[in-house]
C-alpha cells in the first residue's frame, strides 16, 4: 500500500511540475489577450502544489494527521459558509457550540472509528439541539432560515467532508492500520474530474449546463471531464477493493456526485450573491470551492463501499 501511495504522489508531483513548466512558458510567450487566463492558471497550479504538500504531510503523519487536516478543513469551511448565511446576533452561542463542541466531538468519533456515533451525532443530536438553542436564545424571528442554514452548514462543512478521512478507517479495509488508498482515490478522481471539466469546458464548451446556477459549466466540459476521470478511477482501482466492472460503475458515481456537489454549492453561492466562498486559495476561491465535489462524493463512496464490501 505504501508503495502505491508513493507512486501516486510521485506521479501527481510530476503532472504538477509539467503544468507549472507549461504555465511559465505560456506566460513568457503568450499574447496579452490571454494574459489573465494564464495568470489564473499559474495561480491555480501554485495552489495545487501547496495542497498536495499539505495532504502528503498529513498522510505521512498517519491517521491522527489526516483527521486533524480534515478537522481544520471543516473549520475553514464552516467559517466560510456561516459568514455567508443568515445567522442572528442571538445565535452567537449556538455558533460557538457548532465550532468548538460539535465539530471537535464529531472528529474525535471519526478518529476512534465509532461508526455508530459519528454517523448519527450530527444528523440526530446536533439537529435536535441546534433548533432548541436557536429558539431559546433568538426566538422565532427568521427561525426557519437561521436554523436551516446552521444545520446545512453542519452537514456540508463537517458531516460530509469528514467522510473523506473516514474512508481510511472503514473496518474491512483497515485491519492492518488506516488505509488511505480509498480516500486518495476519492480525492484524485473528484479533483481531476473538476480540473478536466474546466479544461474541456474551456476548449470545447458550447452548451451551458445550468446557466442560472453555474455560468461556466457546459455539457461538453461535463462529458469530457467525467469520462476521463472515470477512466482514471478505473486505472486507480488497485487503491480500492473494487474489481473492474464495479470500479467503472463506482468511479462514474463518484464523478456524478462530485458534479452534483459542485452544482449545489454554486446554487448556494448564487443565492447569497457571491462568486466564490472566500479568497483563501489564490486562483481557486475558498476552501469550499475546492472541496465541494468531495462533500457529496465522499459520503456516497463511503456508504456504497461499506454496504457492498463490508
Amino acid at each position: 500500500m505504501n508503495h502505491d501511495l508513493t507512486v501516486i504522489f510521485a506521479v501527481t508531483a510530476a503532472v504538477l511540475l509539467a503544468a507549472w513548466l507549461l504555465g511559465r512558458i505560456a506566460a513568457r510567450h503568450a499574447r496579452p489577450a490571454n494574459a489573465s487566463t494564464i495568470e489564473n492558471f499559474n495561480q491555480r497550479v501554485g495552489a495545487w502544489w501547496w495542497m498536495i504538500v499539505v495532504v502528503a504531510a498529513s498522510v505521512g503523519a498517519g491517521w491522527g494527521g489526516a483527521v486533524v487536516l480534515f478537522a481544520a478543513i471543516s473549520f475553514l469551511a464552516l467559517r466560510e459558509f456561516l459568514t455567508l448565511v443568515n445567522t442572528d446576533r442571538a445565535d452567537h452561542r449556538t455558533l460557538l457550540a457548532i465550532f468548538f463542541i460539535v465539530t471537535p466531538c464529531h472528529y474525535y468519533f471519526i478518529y476512534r472509528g465509532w461508526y455508530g456515533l459519528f454517523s448519527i451525532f450530527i444528523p440526530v443530536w446536533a439537529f435536535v439541539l441546534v433548533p432548541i438553542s436557536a429558539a431559546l436564545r433568538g426566538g422565532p424571528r427568521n427561525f426557519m432560515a437561521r436554523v436551516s442554514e446552521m444545520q446545512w452548514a453542519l452537514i456540508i462543512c463537517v458531516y460530509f467532508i469528514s467522510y473523506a478521512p473516514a474512508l481510511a478507517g472503514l473496518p474491512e479495509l483497515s485491519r492492518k492500520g488506516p488505509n488511505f488508498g480509498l480516500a486518495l482515490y476519492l480525492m484524485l478522481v473528484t479533483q481531476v474530474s473538476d480540473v478536466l471539466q474546466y479544461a474541456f469546458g474551456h476548449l470545447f464548451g458550447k452548451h451551458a449546463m445550468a446557466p442560472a446556477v453555474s455560468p461556466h459549466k457546459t455539457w461538453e466540459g461535463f462529458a469530457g471531464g467525467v469520462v476521463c476521470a472515470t477512466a482514471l478511477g478505473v486505472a486507480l482501482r488497485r487503491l480500492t477493493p473494487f474489481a473492474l466492472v464495479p470500479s467503472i460503475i463506482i468511479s462514474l458515481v463518484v464523478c456524478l456526485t462530485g458534479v452534483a456537489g459542485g452544482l449545489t454549492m454554486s446554487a448556494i453561492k448564487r443565492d447569497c450573491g457571491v462568486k466564490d466562498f472566500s479568497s483563501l486559495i489564490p486562483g481557486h476561491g475558498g476552501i469550499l470551492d475546492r472541496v465541494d465535489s468531495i462533500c457529496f462524493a465522499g459520503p456516497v463512496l463511503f456508504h456504497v463501499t461499506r454496504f457492498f464490501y463490508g
Partner: protein
Amino acid sequence: MTGSALASLIAWAVRATTSLSVKHVGHSFSGAQRIYFANHVSHLDFVVIWASLPRQLRAKTRPVAAADYWSGGLRRVLAERVFHAVLVNRPAGGDVHAAKEAVTELVEGMSGGCSLILFPEGTRGSGANVAAFHGGIAAVCQQIAGVELVPTLIEGTQRVLPKGELFPVPMLCRLTFGPPVYYDAQEPRRLFLDRLRQSLCELRDLKSSA
C-alpha cells in the same frame, strides 16, 4: 516575550481568525499623521484595523478606546503595552466639559506625530447603518493641522464578537480603506461631519455595486 513580538503574534492571530481581507480604494499606507475613522460594531473593531497595518505603522498608530471597557486586568495590559491605546472616558451626551477633556486627551495622544484610530459614531451600532458622527473628530482637526482623515469600512466583526459576548466565533471580516479626506476650517461643523460620514458610506455602496 517582548511587547512587539507579542503585538505581531496578536496581529497575526486576529488576521488568521478573521481571514482578514483588506481592500485599498484610492489609498496606500504612509507615515503621514492620520486619523483612521471607522464604523463601529464590536469591541474588536480597532484590533482588526490595528492588525491590518504594516508593522512600522502599528507602533505609531494609536486606537482610541473606551476606558471603562479596557480598564480591567489583562485588557488594560493589552491596551497599554500592545495597542498603545488612548483610553478615553466616554462623555455622556450633553456633558460639554467631559467632551472637551476627551478631545484634549486625543490631541495629546497624537503628539509626536502619532496617528489615531477613531470611531466617530461614539458607540457600537448593529451594523445596519452608520449613525451620525459626534463632534470630537472635528475638534481634534481644529487643533492639529494637516491631518489626513482616512475612511475605514469594517464588515463582519459584529459577528465575531457581538455586543455583550465574551468569546469570539471565527468569521470572515473585511476592511476597506478609502481615499483621505481633509478638514476645511471654513466649513460648518455639521457639514464636515456629514461629509466624513458620507465618505464612509460611499465605501459601503462601492462594495455592493462591485
